[in-house]
């Protein structure tokens, strides 16, 4: 709680500097360099999209921010991700608190095979949230994820009885229940049908007011629709970063233009 307050103060104090600053970041899986010397900011309360062909390192980059790559034994890093005055890649970082503050939603909807409400309270219990508060947090999170009206009468039925789109919004609600500062979305709509995708997109635009969002997507139209900034990556390298409107209409790099126009994928 304290850390997030600190984060807000800092954000307000220097509104010019970005919320997060990735500096010369390289990520290795064993000898393979999956992300090569990437530097870019992630602006607060904006949506930053990561686009690029499969295997270009965009998901790896995203998963490095909340240290999910720590799960993989062979993964190691070089460089820095500065956030609120600390380097997130520092060995001293408590990844548990980090992941609470920087939430993540994955490609496949992955609710726990438990009742809907348990999905939301699951992590809250780890942080010893008071019972009296839990009900309110659950309701707020589900409302933020635009799921409350659909599930309010069946909070105790299994999360797996929900449709794919509802499951994904539940996963977003699950992350929101922890009151994160940043949401990392790893291709959140790639497993969803167009209608469900549209709902999730609306939701992302809505959430931007309160959260900083980084989203990896294969869908360039989606990136154009919802993001403020876009990063194009290719072969682990950052090719171009800029405002979405500028990058899509008037890319500076030839490779960006070729990718956007479908010359390669």
């Amino acid at each position, binding site marked *: 709680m304290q850390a997030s307050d600190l984060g807000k103060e800092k954000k307000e104090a220097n509104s010019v500097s970005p919320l997060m600053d990735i500096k010369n970041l390289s990520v290795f899986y064993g000898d393979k360099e999956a992300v090569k010397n990437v530097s870019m900011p992630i602006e607060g309360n904006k949506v930053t999209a990561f686009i690029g062909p499969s295997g270009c390192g965009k998901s790896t980059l995203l998963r490095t921010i*909340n240290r*999910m790559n720590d*799960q993989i*034994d062979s993964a190691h890093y070089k460089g820095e991700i500065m956030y609120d005055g600390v380097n997130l890649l520092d060995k001293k970082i408590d*990844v*548990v*608190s*980090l*992941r*609470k503050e920087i*939430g*993540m*939603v*994955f490609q*496949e909807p*992955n*609710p*726990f*095979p*438990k009742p809907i409400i348990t999905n939301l309270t*699951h*992590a809250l219990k*780890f*942080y010893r949230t008071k019972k009296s508060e839990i009900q309110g947090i659950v309701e707020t999170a589900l409302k933020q994820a635009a799921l409350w009206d659909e599930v309010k009468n069946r909070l105790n039925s299994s999360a797996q009885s929900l449709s794919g789109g509802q499951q994904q919004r539940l*996963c977003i609600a*699950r*992350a929101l229940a*922890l009151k994160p500062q940043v949401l990392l979305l790893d291709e959140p709509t790639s497993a969803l049908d167009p209608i469900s995708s549209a709902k999730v997109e609306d939701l992302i635009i809505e959430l931007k007011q309160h959260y900083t969002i980084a989203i990896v997507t294969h869908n360039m139209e989606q990136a154009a629709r919802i993001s403020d900034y876009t990063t194009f990556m290719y072969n682990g390298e950052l090719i171009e970063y800029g405002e979405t409107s500028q990058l899509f209409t008037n890319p500076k790099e030839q490779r960006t233009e070729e990718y956007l126009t479908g010359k390669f994928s």
Partner: protein
Amino acid sequence: MSNSNYSSTSSSTHRLIKNKNGSVKRNELRGKVVVYSCAVLIIIATIAITLFLTIKGLQSFIVNGVNVGEFLTGLTWSPSGEGDVAYGAFPFIFGSFSVTFLAALFAAPLGIGSAIFMTEIAKTWGQKVLQPVIEILVGIPSVVYGLIGLTVIVPLIREHSSGIGFSLLAGMIVVGVMILPTVTSISADALKSIPQDIKDASYGLGATRWQTIYKVILPAAMPSLATAVVLGMARAFGEALAVQMVIGNSKALPESITDQAATLTSIITLSMGHTTYGSLHNNLLWSLGLILLVMSYVFIIIIRFISSRRKV
């Protein structure tokens, strides 16, 4: 050949009409016969064993007029005694069940614990070292377990208790160690099959490894883990040799865990050789065998029940 077929218009040899005597058809039939007869053989064998054991097992009740209730609950066993004949099998039924449950009590936490270690904590080491070790343990013949129990565990218990060492406790430890690899390897498979998605979800919410194991992985794997334990119990229930070597084979009901006892299997293996075929004693042993068969069916039904619930 194919060309002539292609142009042929006669209905009996048209390439699209089923050819009744073609070599393909004959090969199909041959394969079908082989596979079907294997299946039929297995089914016949199972039915025959069940039927045979049922008929033999019921002889003592039908031909010799043994009271079923007395057989299942009686405490004295002296079926070939010169004087009073008593046929209470309860001590053996009790012995079998206690060895089974105690062994499961011993093997379940250890097996599931090491499975967690293997799949979640030390993945590479666990799978390179622990898994082969466990596979070797599965292959060790039960008589070897019995021998080790006889030379190590029985003397140990003798020194630390008032009994003579041969005991329910020794049986429990030996059988527990025997079923440990079964429980471990099936549990490890169960834990490995938990999708990475769910683990990621939990870690992504900032759960620690232990919280993830305890709150997400174990509940999700619970039905399969239960199956692992029940399979281990089925094996424990049917184990004869190793148990017989360490349990003492006393025909009385054990009074404590360090007391001697006997199981259904150990009584059958001990006595079967010196009974006359068709005698009361012999028939009673068949009845004990029938109990074993019924119990193994019960274990199978339990496993089926657990795994059918998992799919929901």
